[in-house]
């Protein structure tokens, strides 16, 4: 009997917990979310004639946002732009003018990415087959779906290396030995097939030639005159 009561109590507790409404935080896949990179600002543009913007913020959706955002002009500053719900209101500038109903704008701000890859500063063309550059991306963001693209950069112009979209890259065997190539790894957050807030890292890697066949005259033992 006692055990039954305990089970019933636990069941009720679980039911209560699961029945509580869960107010969703904004994610990159939240419908109608607007994605921003760390350090970005949000420019609301010019308000309707004779009115100003009023912006309020909440981390979760609400009908009564209370946290006001101070605009810089019509811009939400980088410091004030965070993941969450922004409520945009227009209000006439006249005395006693009213606030409009709110436009809710879900915003997701990606954390800054740091990208790197490991590769030798040079390798011998003879060893090209064994070369593989290995990228890495570090971020504090909870969103971990990333996309990669390897480039070569020549005179500041990057050229995507076709098919090089994984975190590792095997350099081409056709690279002319004796040359130096700048490789770039660009990584970004991947959302619905699109990439956002990328970061890059460039590294110059030389390919050395295979030394010529040495011509070595080996003086063997001279025949002795026996």
């Amino acid at each position, binding site marked *: 009997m006692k055990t039954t009561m305990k089970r019933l109590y636990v069941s009720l507790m679980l039911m209560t917990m699961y029945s509580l409404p869960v107010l969703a935080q904004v994610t990159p896949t939240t419908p109608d979310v*607007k*994605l921003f990179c760390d350090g970005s600002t949000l420019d609301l543009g010019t308000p309707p004639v004779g009115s100003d913007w009023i912006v309020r913020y909440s981390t979760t959706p609400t009908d009564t946002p209370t946290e006001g955002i101070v605009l810089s002009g019509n811009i939400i500053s980088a410091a004030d732009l965070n993941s969450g719900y922004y409520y945009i209101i227009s209000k006439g500038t006249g005395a006693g003018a009213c606030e409009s109903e709110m436009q809710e704008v879900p915003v997701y701000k990606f954390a800054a990415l740091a990208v790197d890859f490991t590769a030798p500063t040079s390798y011998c063309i003879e060893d090209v087959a064994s070369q593989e550059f290995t990228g890495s991306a570090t971020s504090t963001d909870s969103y971990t779906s990333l996309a990669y693209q390897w480039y070569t950069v020549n005179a500041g112009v990057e050229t995507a290396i076709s098919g090089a979209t994984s975190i590792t890259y095997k350099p081409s065997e056709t690279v002319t030995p004796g040359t130096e190539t700048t490789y770039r790894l660009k990584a970004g957050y991947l959302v619905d097939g699109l990439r956002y807030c990328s970061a890059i890292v460039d590294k110059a890697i030389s390919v050395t030639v295979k030394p010529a066949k040495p011509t070595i005259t080996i003086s063997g033992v001279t025949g002795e005159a026996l």
Partner: protein
Amino acid sequence: MYLTVRILSIFRALALCLLLLAAANLDGYGQKIYADVQRSGTTGTGGTITDPNFSVDVSNLTNYTRLSASSTVLVSGGAWQQLTFSSRTFLANSTVFIKVNVASSLLGGGITAQTYVGSNASSVGSIVTSQSTYFTSIDGATYLAVTGNSNFNAIRITLAPPALLGVSTADIYYAFYEPTNKACAEVLGTSVGGTGISLGGGVANPLNAVDNNLNTYSSLNGGILGLGYTISQTAYFSNLSNIGDAATITFSLPPSLLQLSLFNNININLYNGSALVNSGTIGGLLSLDLLGLLRSGQRYTVSYTPENVVFDRIEVSIATGVALLTDLRIHEIQRTPAKPIVPIAHPSVETVCYGSIATLRATTASEGSVLRWYNQLNDGTILLEGNEYTTPPVTIAVGDTAFYYVATAWASGCPAESQRVKITVVANPLPTITLSSSLDMCQGDVNSLLSYTNIANDPTRYSIAWSGSPVGFVDVNDAPLPLNNITLTIPASASAGTYTGILRVKNITTSCESEGIAFSIIVHPKPNVPNLEIITNSQY
């Protein structure tokens, strides 16, 4: 035939009714009943009667019968006339008045009056013991007031032969009796008297006390010697009072320092005929707050209502030797209805709110009388005749008072009025607040705070009446007044525009409500929802 009889019956009934009405009019509604039968004769030799029927001719009351008496060396003779009321026998202690014109020297005994019972045209009847006195009327004529000790219906006036050689005459105009009624109490005249002799005492201008003019007065001077004696003035009325009627005395004194206790030496004595039936003092009718008025020489009216007695004479007497009351001025001696009964009479106060009307009420204990309202103690114009007087809005300052007065008078339109009873009205201040400037709110909002400051006179409740009864706006009645702000409830459906209302605050203790405080609230339209196109700029 039958119809003729019926018509005759109806006419007879109507005639009987008219006759009864006429009789009632003669006997009970304020009209005098005159002696209508006379007998006359002489005594001794030398007396004569001229125009004996003139004294019973009510068609001309200015005519008179003249009795002449003479005394010569050889003979002397007097004359008499007996005036009979053929239709009435008066009860004991009734008083009948005879208007005469005689030399004042005869009033000491040269002319006498005697009542009779059973008198008619063919019989003098029997003598009834009586008392008589005389007084002077306002027009200077003399009245004899004769009171029978038992039932009587006639009075004989006898002119005795002069004590000295010569001729004396007595002109008899008429004799009348007036039943008690609720018409104006007619003062026939006045007499002065007193007990003892006070040096310098007496009554000056006695007729001024019965001339129906409150601005004139007789002066009762008590003199400076003769302590314990009295000086008096008596007013004679044409009939007996109703039970509950008041003796109303209007008096003043020369401006002087006074003490209220001095008025205890002024007596009001009421008589039924020659019988004293009640006494009181003026001092018992006065209050301390009148001293200022009396000291300044203004007149004051008191009404003294005896219990369960009727009277037809009012005597005001002053004890002599009371130095400070050596000159009591009697402006009028009147008989009036009892003074009004006022539920909230001075020094109690009727309290209203500042700017409000006060409904003052009084009743009269005297049937057939009306109430007259004034805003001053003496003189002034009647504000209203009725039981209830509504004042104009009372706008006296806090701590100040407004006074109203109410007196009774017979409904027949007599000028004579009772003492005016004072009613004091004070005003409680109105609570007030000061509202902030006009309110603005947005369409769809349902609450707005109406803030206020400058609270005065303890408002604790408020009411709001919206002007024009806009749809969905609900008036507020006597709601508790919140601190600093009143929350206005606006219907969410209210369209944009300006709405006005009247706010009133109330002090629940005094029930005084402020004047209406107008306010307005502007409901502004809401702008459209922003429709921003925000483009994520981080795609590559």
